[in-house]
């Protein structure tokens, strides 16, 4: 009896979910389905050679990759951020600023204005995570003297936030703070922006050391719109 009741409840919940999703789509976007944007980011710039580590080698290793430009042999560029102006996104998952092997991992992230970000470390060495807003204002600078600490702080206003470590000057991370829809290119240079209402938008691209012009893009319902960026 209990099992039948449980199945019945599950079934009711499943129906409720379908109804809710349908209602949401109709209320917000009418009967029309959303589209998506997929693309690839490339560059002719070359990545730079790894550099020798001169402090804390027992934790950091003797050599670390220079990740200012992460590009494969075909010119596919990772860690570029595409930002679709005018399409707002609600809060996504938690953003974690991880200090690992004397690198910020991941190096580039996207979060919403005033979101709480969690800073932590896996390294048994003093790291500091200084979040420096593009305005020049330090949003926070927290010390991580031992691994396993979790420190949550608000990331502040929209803009580009650079992450520095005051004890390991090569460490660099970036948080793009925006409530617009945004995606980060992977190791293959590809990115996807899902669930975009049909319409014409401007798509910007950001990279820490390369530049590319914004492009107009028209999203149509029910199928992906392809776009590519070449950064210099």
């Amino acid at each position: 009896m209990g099992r039948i009741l449980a199945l019945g409840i599950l079934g009711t919940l499943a129906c409720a979910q379908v109804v809710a999703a349908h209602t949401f789509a109709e209320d917000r976007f009418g009967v029309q389905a959303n589209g998506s944007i997929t693309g690839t980011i490339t560059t002719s710039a070359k990545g730079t050679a790894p550099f020798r580590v001169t402090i804390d080698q027992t934790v950091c290793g003797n050599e670390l990759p220079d990740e200012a430009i992460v590009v494969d042999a075909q010119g596919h560029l990772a860690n570029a951020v595409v930002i679709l102006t005018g399409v707002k996104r609600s809060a996504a998952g938690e953003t974690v600023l991880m200090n690992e092997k004397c690198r910020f991992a991941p190096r580039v992230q996207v979060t919403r204005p005033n979101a709480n970000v969690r800073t932590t470390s896996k390294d048994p060495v003093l790291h500091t995570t200084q979040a420096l807003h593009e305005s020049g204002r330090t949003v926070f600078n927290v010390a991580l003297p031992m691994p396993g600490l979790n420190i949550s702080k608000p990331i502040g206003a929209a803009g580009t936030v650079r992450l520095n470590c005051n004890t390991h000057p090569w460490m660099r991370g970036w948080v793009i703070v925006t409530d617009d829809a945004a995606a980060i290119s992977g190791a293959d240079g590809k990115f996807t922006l899902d669930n975009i209402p049909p319409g014409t938008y401007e798509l910007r691209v950001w990279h820490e050391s390369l530049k590319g012009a914004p492009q107009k893009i028209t999203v149509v319902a029910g199928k992906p719109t392809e776009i590519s960026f070449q950064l210099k």
Partner: protein
Amino acid sequence: MWGAWCARCHAQDGTGKIDEPTVSVQPMDFTDCKLTSAEPDADWERAIAKGGPGVGLSPLMPGFEDSLTAEQIAGFVAHMRGFCKESGWPSGNTNFPRPIVTEKAFPENEFLILPSVSHEREWELAGVYERRLGKRSMVEFEVPVQHGGVDEIAIAFKHAVHASGFNIVSLGLETAFFRDTTVFEPFISAGSMLRDWYLQGQFKVELPADRAKADRAIVYNAYVGRDTSLAPTTWTLGVELNGENHELALTPQVRKGITGTGALAASIGVMLPLNEREEQGVRWVGYLLWEFLEPLRARK
């Protein structure tokens, strides 16, 4: 943990001088007793807890409040106090906020402008320069300007005869040179802290060289006040009891650190007569203060 953490920027010996600095600012030299001894422990604890911006200094100094307990932070401050190897410097824990009238006991390096305006629009503006001498002494030059011009100049010397914990006592002599006489003003100043309350007092005798030109007087001032926060920019609320012979006045006042380090500060109060009201009148009093050897500016 000094070696593993702090020494990365502040050096093992606390000088802040390291071969391969990883920060772009030169940290304060903790072995320089002249600079460090004047700082209260509470400011250093705040700098460690909140990072540089908590005390108006560089954001390159991170905050440790999420990773260390208050006891651990106090332990670091105790270690840092050991970098000054010279004894005899009065502790910055006795460097209390200056009241408007009461002479503070701690020797200072300051410029001050002290305006005073009565309800009858009579005003006075005093310029004061204070400079520390040696570990415990201070010399002071004061020029009060009134609407009638300059009537006197004063030179004062004081010496901290006792400073331990949160208690300080200084003895001093102020000499005021008037056109027609000189007045010698020996005084004792004392300060203490009781819980979060600052208690400061001064007792002074004014002895004119020529008693036909000026009267002897007994001057006594007492101050009680407290900060509203631990930041150098805090508001400090206080009240003074100011007495000269049988005339008594009460001076409620408020002080505020203007810059992040508190090196620039201002105070304003109103002196309300408790007796002899006709004689004394109500006066607006205050000061603008610049602590010119504050550590950040004094850094090489």
